[in-house]
Every structure is written in C-alpha cells, then in structure tokens.
C-alpha cells in the first residue's frame, strides 16, 4: 500500500488559530478502528428476530411481552434508580432512522443509526428512494438522446455527466472532437465544479451552523448559473455537451463574463475562509470528525475531494487525462487528516485550481468548430438541408433512427465534483446503447459512511454526512 503523499499546500493556508492535529493522532487511530466487516455495512450478523408488526404503533403492546417490560411501557413501573436497577444491559442499543425526510441528508437518504446513548455504534445507509431506473431508460433512448438522460443523474454537476457519456460514445465511435470543443468542455466542466463546490459549501456550512454561509454560497453560485443559462439555455440539466462536441458555441462576450465570475468567486472565497476556516466554533465541529483513512478510501472506492482529504493522490484529470486536461497547469490539493475540516480545505483549494484552469482556457482556447464535422454524428446546419440531398438524408437518419455506434464495450471516467464518474457503455452496433452503467461517485461515498460515523457522536453525523456530499440522484439513478 502506498504511503500517503505530502500535503500540496497550494496557496490555501489554514489561518492562524486553527489547531494543528498531531501527526501521530491519526496514525494511532486506525488501530482502534474496527474492521471493515464489523460495521453493519451490510448486516454482518444474522438478522434480528422481529416480533409481529402492529398497525397501531405505540398504541398496541406486543403480545408475549414480559410483565415487567409491559409495566415499563405503560408507565406503571417506577424506577428511580436507573444505574443500579440491573435492568439495563450492555447490549441495549437504540435504533433510530435518520431520513429519508431529514433536511440534513440532502435528499432522500435514510440512515439506520444504532445508538449507545449519544454514541453511534453502527450505521447502515438505506438508499433507493430516488431510484428511477435511468439505466433502463438509457437503453430505450438513442445515443444522441442519451445525454438528456444522464444529465439528470447528478443534478448538481450535470455537465460532468454529459461529458463522461459523450466521451464514452466518442470512444466507441472513434470520433475526435475539434480542439475548440474540447476546450469549451474543459471550461464548462470546471465552471460546473466551482458551482457545485459553492453549493456544497453553502449547504454544509448551513448544516453545521454557519447560517450566513448558506446565503453567501448560493449568491456566488448564481453568477455561474446565469452564465450557464446564457450559454446552454438552462440553469441545470443543460444537455449542452453531446456526442460529437457541444450544442452551441460560447456567447460572444464570454470573456467579460468570465472576468466578472472569477472576481465574484474569488472575493467570495476569501470571505468563506475568514468566516469558516478560522472560526473556533467551526474548527471545534469539524476537526477530527468523520475521519476516513487512506486505506479505507482505497478499499471502498471513495474518490474525489473526500479521498484527497485522506491523502489519496488520485484525480482522474491528472492520472487518466481526458478532453485535453493534460495541457493545463493545475495542482491537486491533497491533505492527510481525512476529517471534515480537511474536506473543506480541499474543496476550497479545488475552486481556486478550477479558476486557474478557466484562466488558462481564456488564454489558449483555439478558434474553430465547436462540434465535429462528421456528418454521421452531427446533424447538418439548417441551411445545408435546403441545398444538399445528402444533408437531408443525414438529418433524417439522425433524427429518426439515430446514428449507429460500432459494437463494443468501454469504460470512460471523468472527475466530477464528487469523484470518479465512470460510464460503462456497451453497444451492440445499433443506434441505442445495449447497456449503460453509471458509476456514480456518491454511491461509493455513501457506502463509506459506516466507516466515517462508527463510534462518533450523533451530533457529528450531520457534519460527516455533509462533508461526503452525496447527491441522491447520483446514488440511486
């Protein structure tokens, strides 16, 4: 197992006042941590025998209950010496359900918490409340329509979904997109990363008590959404990145928009750092909370900012570059504490690195076409249809049957705001995918919650959950 790499500090220093977490504090921690299979990740023990269910809930007592417990339930038993009564057992754990309607679960996640007083012993994430069968839907849509489907999965970073899907289709088609299209894709996906991280810092700050963060984060994100609306026509679910390129060129005054967006985000970010990272209350709530170790991240497939906060130096943009990311100069922030505080540090630094990439795109974006010239994939321009019979045929074929993709299977990953977003695409040579599997980063991150939360306080659940940033549309699909 590789050693966690050193911190890449970038220019984001924790303000003075933040306590240093002793290096050996975390090294010592894993020895106390329970093994992977002891965490109710999956019911590692025989299911508990349940009594018959009652319709009346608490109104009806279970038949066959001991007289003592019945007396306790009805309140007739008075027990004024709890400690010495001998009725409390070591294994007396309280189970509560958090969600699916809990506001801090960011959607419809349900957590089955086993509590020993205030301490969480085991956690079982229960998912599927937002499952809409999108992988099955993808099999009924043509390759061209498919991007409208995938964009609705992770609704906070729709452009990454579209990008991953389009790259997978293009890999099977062996179509190369023009350099301008690739640069536009980089620009838009980095802007989407900033927007997603801003919304995340807003809601996470809100969850752990920084109420003003909620307003600030959404305020700065608005400037990005306005640009998305101007460019793609929609504020979310853009269907902008499509197989073969992008749907439209950037607006003519996009550089001015970028300058103002960068200014807004950078000034906002400076505020957040002052507001949160140096705040003693915030530090108290986040330092040493929700820890995931380096090895646990690898074992559970945890990727993205959560893994990078735990010292896993893995970013798809660097390790397996796509869409020309190798041309841009940026750094991957990596920290080693693996707690909620570090996840804030990593994400704030990622926003800065994304701004760096946006600046480079502004300088280096080439002129040219924004979608491929391949008429089998790209519909011809409207004017050509009046002049050319061939263009009419291509147009007709694309919009009735759809373009055909050679048979084969491929896996294409992109770095979404939450981690590795993979598209496993199988084609049988027809105009529709035979199978599209989406490896959502949130799915694996939710799976690691039992690790994060075991033996922590119930008050830390919300902080740890928020820092994992699960989007249920991505988990359940």
């Amino acid at each position: 197992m590789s050693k966690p790499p050193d911190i890449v500090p970038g220019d984001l220093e924790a303000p003075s006042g933040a306590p240093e977490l002793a290096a050996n504090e975390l090294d010592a921690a894993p020895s106390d941590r329970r093994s992977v299979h002891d965490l109710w990740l999956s019911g590692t023990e025989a299911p508990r025998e349940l009594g018959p269910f009652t319709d009346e809930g608490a109104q009806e007592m279970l038949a066959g209950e001991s007289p003592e417990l019945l007396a306790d339930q009805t309140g007739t038993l008075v027990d004024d010496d709890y400690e010495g009564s001998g009725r409390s057992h070591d294994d007396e754990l309280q189970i509560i359900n958090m969600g699916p309607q809990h506001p801090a679960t960011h959607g419809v996640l349900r957590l089955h918490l086993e509590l020993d007083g205030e301490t969480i012993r085991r956690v079982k994430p229960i998912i599927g409340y937002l499952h809409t069968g999108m992988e099955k839907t993808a099999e009924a849509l043509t390759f061209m329509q498919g991007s409208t489907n995938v964009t609705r999965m992770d609704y906070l970073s729709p452009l990454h979904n579209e990008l991953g899907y389009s790259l997978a289709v293009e890999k099977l088609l062996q179509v190369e997109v023009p350099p301008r299209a690739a640069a536009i894709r980089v620009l838009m996906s980095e802007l989407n990363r900033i927007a997603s991280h801003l919304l995340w810092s807003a809601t996470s700050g809100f969850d752990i008590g920084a109420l003003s963060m909620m307003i600030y984060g959404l305020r700065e994100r608005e400037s990005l959404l306005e640009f998305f609306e101007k460019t793609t026509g929609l504020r979310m679910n853009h269907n902008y990145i499509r197989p073969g390129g992008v749907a439209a060129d950037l607006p003519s005054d996009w550089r001015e928009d970028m300058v103002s967006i960068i200014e807004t985000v950078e000034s906002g970010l400076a505020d957040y750092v002052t507001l949160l990272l140096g705040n003693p209350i915030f530090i108290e709530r986040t330092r040493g909370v929700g820890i995931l170790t380096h090895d646990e991240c690898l074992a559970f497939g945890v990727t993205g900012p959560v893994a990078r906060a735990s010292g896993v130096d893995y970013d798809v943009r660097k390790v397996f570059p796509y869409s020309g990311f190798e041309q841009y100069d940026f750094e991957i922030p990596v920290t080693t504490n693996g707690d909620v505080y570090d996840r804030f540090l990593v994400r704030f630094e990622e926003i800065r690195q994304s701004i760096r990439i946006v600046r480079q795109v502004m300088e280096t974006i080439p002129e040219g076409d924004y979608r491929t010239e391949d008429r089998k994939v790209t519909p011809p321009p409207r004017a050509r249809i009046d002049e050319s019979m061939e263009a009419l045929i291509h147009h007709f074929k694309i919009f009735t049957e759809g373009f055909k993709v050679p048979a084969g299977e491929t896996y294409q990953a992109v770095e979404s705001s939450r981690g590795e977003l993979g598209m496993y695409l199988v084609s049988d040579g027809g105009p529709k995918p035979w199978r599209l599997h989406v490896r959502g980063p949130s799915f694996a991150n939710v799976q690691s919650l039992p690790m994060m939360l075991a033996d922590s306080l119930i008050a830390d659940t919300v902080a740890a959950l928020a820092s994992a940033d699960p989007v249920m549309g991505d988990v359940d699909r």
Partner: protein
Amino acid sequence: MTTVPAELVGVAAAFPDVEFDSVLGDTVARASRDDVVGLLEAVYDAGYEMFIDLCAVDYLSRDPRFDVAINLVSVSQSLRLRVLVGIPGTDSKMPTVSTVYPGSNFYEREAFDLFGIEFSGHPDMTRILLPDDWEGHPLRKDVSVGSVPVQFKESNKAR
C-alpha cells in the same frame, strides 16, 4: 495471450486460463467464475489497490448470458484493469469479491437487485435500490420497460 501490461505478467503466468486483451486502450481480463477471487487477490497484490466499479451486463442470447465487469485502478501505477466474468443464465451465481475489495459490497447488491445475479458468500445479499417486495430483476433484457396507465385514454372512443 496478447497484450499484458508489465505489472500483470506475473499474474498472467499464474492464471493461464485468464485471457488478457486490450480493448480500445483498456486492459481487459476475462476470467471464469472459479478463478475470479484468486485472480483478484493476485491483482490486488500486483498493486491494483482501489476498487472502482462492479456492474452486470445482460447479453440475453449469448452464452454465457451475463457478464460481470469489475473495474479496478492502481493509483500508484496509474493503471486501469477491467475483469470480465461470464455467468450463465441458468445458474446466475458467482462468488463474492467483497472479501478482497470490501467496496464491492453495494455494487454486488445492485447487480443482484437489477440482474438477479447472486454473489455467494456476500454478507447481505438483499435488494438495495428497489423495494424489498419487488418481483423480478428489471435490468434484464427480457423485462420490458413497461408503461404507466394514462388518464382519459379512452376519451376518443367515447366520442
């Protein structure tokens, strides 16, 4: 035996039945059900420390009917590997790989839920996305998309 990356030569030698191939730039290993756990243990030792993805594909008319695709990453060596396991439709079972990669736990439950592939030895082989009382496995190719009854569908006939 075509293209085996240098890191996997030892693994390929230990498992002569496993076919290694390069598909559109991805390294793909095709293993049988009996080999897969041993193969993944060897692959883990060869440096593929990160579990990424496990999913099933239903080829319906092919024999074996299902493929289970396991995606792994070696962070330290910047390599990807996809292991494909063929599973017959009549006996859709395979051993769990969550003993090697604990992260496959949820993914195996998803494959069971949507395709009905049972992973023997899995600690909790239950449905994950669909309700517990759901019948059938909807991502199989012999299950249709279905339809939802629409109101006022009969209005034309009444006129």
